[in-house]
């Protein structure tokens, strides 16, 4: 398959610009652009250049180790992997969760959504949105946000902290806990833990509502730019509950085409391979998933907050649902199709997570003692799907009669969005870079588009302002023409 700007017809005559920051989280991302002498863009690619190998090295390991091991894929959303693996292994064991187990897992998951969305918006993306995509790099970071808007920054930090506390009390640790086990959980909330969380949850709901208004007002101020920035039409997929409600923990798969027409609905994710296949491209370690019946060229889609908010029939918490309706109706529905609309949808989900935590804390099942279900009819294969902060996450395992994992397939959120992220950065390259001299500010526009999807890539984390970044322009004969260097302090110099 080929897409416009994916592969230049004569790359040998073009100069190559690489945006290659070094990862400080778990991902290594790189963007390359091929430009001609007039700075016209001919090729843009987002490469994922790391190879993790988790699917291989869990082979032969006992299945109960998997939820704890695979969460090490990520330091930002390990809970998602922890729970998706647990759900897959529930299926292997034939276990039906007790009410306490399911609600404690949901609580853990909503804590994860809350902390990750707060981190994504306030720490990583708000510097671009508050100061401008091409603003002074020295202050375009979270420290700059703290200086310019200390109250906003403080709320962002405390929202994230609260989510981390929910995770700590349900999983045992803020990062990489062990709370969810195949067939249930190993702890519920102690009465004092429940009370300490309940004490602050109303404040979290209020701050989440304010966060929705922050991104809404940014859209209002910059409507034309935000609507057009990296905009592209795409198909979508997410989990929905049986009644069509948003459900980030469990449900059936729903997909729509770019016009909103249903492609499939309430599809049993236990057979996801009937509707999704993956393609490998030689220039990236990340696969390209697509809807099987449409083929790789036309079957790509996007996942994540924007998709989930638009894809469901309603959000089952009242404040978030009201915001959803306003979001979908805003400017004739334009924000709901914009790449930067991801941030708005993300804040609506954060509000939903806060409301859901409040409801769960008022449910006595979260302090129950019936933690694990007895095993039922054992199966060889298990699939667990969850809506992780950045999109649909699929874990698929086969376990032999000796309890060893013999095969694993993980399709993570970023993978589903692979083609979509490439489309977004190509669109930005066309809009902002084509025909212009390359500057750090212009290159940051590309990273702004990536950050709308996924802060797990290294190029998205450099919003912290400390990520070393080198942009080099090399002529056809290999001689260096120009280069920009940003050091670990965020200072840019031209060599």
């Amino acid at each position: 398959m080929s897409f416009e700007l994916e592969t230049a017809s004569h790359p040998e005559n073009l100069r190559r610009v690489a945006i290659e920051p070094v990862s400080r989280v778990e991902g290594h991302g790189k963007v390359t652009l091929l430009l001609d002498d007039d700075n016209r863009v001919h090729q843009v690619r987002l490469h994922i250049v790391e190879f993790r190998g988790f699917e291989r090295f869990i082979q032969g390991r006992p299945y109960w180790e998997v939820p704890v091991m695979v969460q090490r894929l990520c330091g930002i959303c390990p809970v998602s992997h922890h729970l998706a693996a647990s759900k897959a292994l529930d299926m292997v064991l034939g276990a039906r969760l007790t009410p306490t187990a399911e609600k404690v897992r949901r609580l853990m998951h909503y804590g994860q959504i809350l902390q990750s969305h707060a981190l994504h918006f306030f720490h990583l993306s708000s510097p671009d949105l508050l100061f401008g995509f091409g603003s002074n790099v020295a202050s375009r970071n979270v420290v700059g946000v703290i200086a310019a808007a200390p109250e906003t920054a403080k709320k962002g930090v405390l929202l994230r902290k609260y989510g981390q506390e929910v995770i700590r009390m349900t999983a045992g640790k803020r990062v990489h806990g062990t709370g969810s086990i195949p067939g249930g959980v190993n702890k519920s909330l102690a009465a004092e833990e429940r009370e300490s969380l309940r004490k602050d949850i109303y404040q979290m709901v209020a701050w989440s509502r304010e966060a929705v208004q922050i991104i809404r007002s940014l859209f209002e101020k910059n409507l034309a730019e935000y609507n057009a920035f990296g905009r592209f039409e795409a198909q979508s997929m997410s989990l929905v509950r049986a009644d069509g409600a948003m459900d980030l923990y469990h449900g059936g798969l729903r997909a729509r085409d770019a016009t909103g027409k249903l492609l499939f609905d309430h599809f049993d994710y236990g057979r996801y391979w009937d509707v999704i296949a993956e393609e490998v491209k030689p220039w990236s370690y990340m696969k390209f998933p697509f809807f099987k019946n449409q083929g790789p060229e036309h079957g790509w889609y996007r996942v994540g907050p924007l998709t989930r908010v638009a894809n469901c029939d309603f959000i089952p918490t009242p404040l978030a649902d009201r915001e959803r309706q306003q979001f979908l109706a805003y400017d004739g529905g334009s924000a709901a199709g914009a790449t930067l609309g991801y941030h708005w949808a993300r804040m609506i989900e954060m509000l939903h997570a806060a409301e859901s935590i409040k409801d769960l804390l008022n449910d006595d099942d979260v302090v129950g003692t019936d933690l694990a279900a007895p095993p039922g009819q054992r199966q060889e294969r298990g699939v667990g799907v969850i809506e992780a902060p950045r999109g649909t996450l699929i874990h698929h395992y086969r376990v032999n009669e000796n309890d060893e994992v013999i095969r694993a397939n993980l399709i993570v959120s970023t993978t589903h969005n692979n083609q979509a992220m490439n489309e977004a950065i190509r669109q930005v390259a066309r809009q902002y870079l084509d025909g212009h001299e390359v500057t750090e500010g212009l290159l940051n526009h590309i990273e702004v588009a990536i950050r709308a999807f996924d802060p797990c890539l290294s190029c998205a984390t450099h919003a912290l302002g400390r990520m070393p970044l080198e942009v080099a322009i090399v002529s056809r004969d290999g001689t260096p023409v120009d280069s920009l260097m940003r050091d670990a302090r965020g200072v840019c110099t031209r060599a």
Partner: protein
Amino acid sequence: MTGTFTLDGREIAFEPGQTVMQAALAAGVFVPHLCYHPEFRPHGSCKLCTMKINGRPATSCTMPAVAGMEVESDTAEINDKRRMLVQMLLVEGNHFCPSCEMSGNCKLQALGYTLGVMTPHFTHFFPDRPVDASHPEMLLDFNRCILCELCIRASAEVDKKNVFALSGRGMKKHLVVNAESGRLADTDFAATDKAAEVCPVGVILKKRRGFAVPIGKRTYDIKPINEQAERFKPVAPTVREKA
């Protein structure tokens, strides 16, 4: 012989037949160890309990207590050596604490914390040691074996089954299952055997139990190992004395 000796300047009383380590543990003084188990005869192989006794290094688990001894244990010099021993054990096997179900209950990990192991220091061996999951109730993860021989001793002396043995020499020494196939399923090993409960690390594991105890309630979450001397107090008679 009864009497007292001094351990790091503290007077320790001992009973007839007690070793320095037994007397120290009985007095509530923790002594780092891996191959020692209160129900088994001293083995003296892990060397972590080494102390300076009257100025000379010796394994305190095998050294009979003698009145008037002057013993040094909790000193920077001796703990440096102990830390190095733990580091060597950590690189010799595949010890991945983040995903190990014995994390929080593992003596090797607990000693690593207590002795201040901050890095592996040595180059990892990364040995290739397959898991034996053939038994319906038990799993063997040889990656974590530290060759303490407690399972061998328990199986031979208490269970009377001889399920485990060491094979190979020197660097190639490794734990094996005493069966023609080499598989645990082809032995009469049972989850109720003494050998099923003595492993100080994460080699011999009951299946489908991993991670059932939450973080915060595991053995060494509650108190560090060096504050749990009472867990290792000698029980009398020892297996050897019974025999």
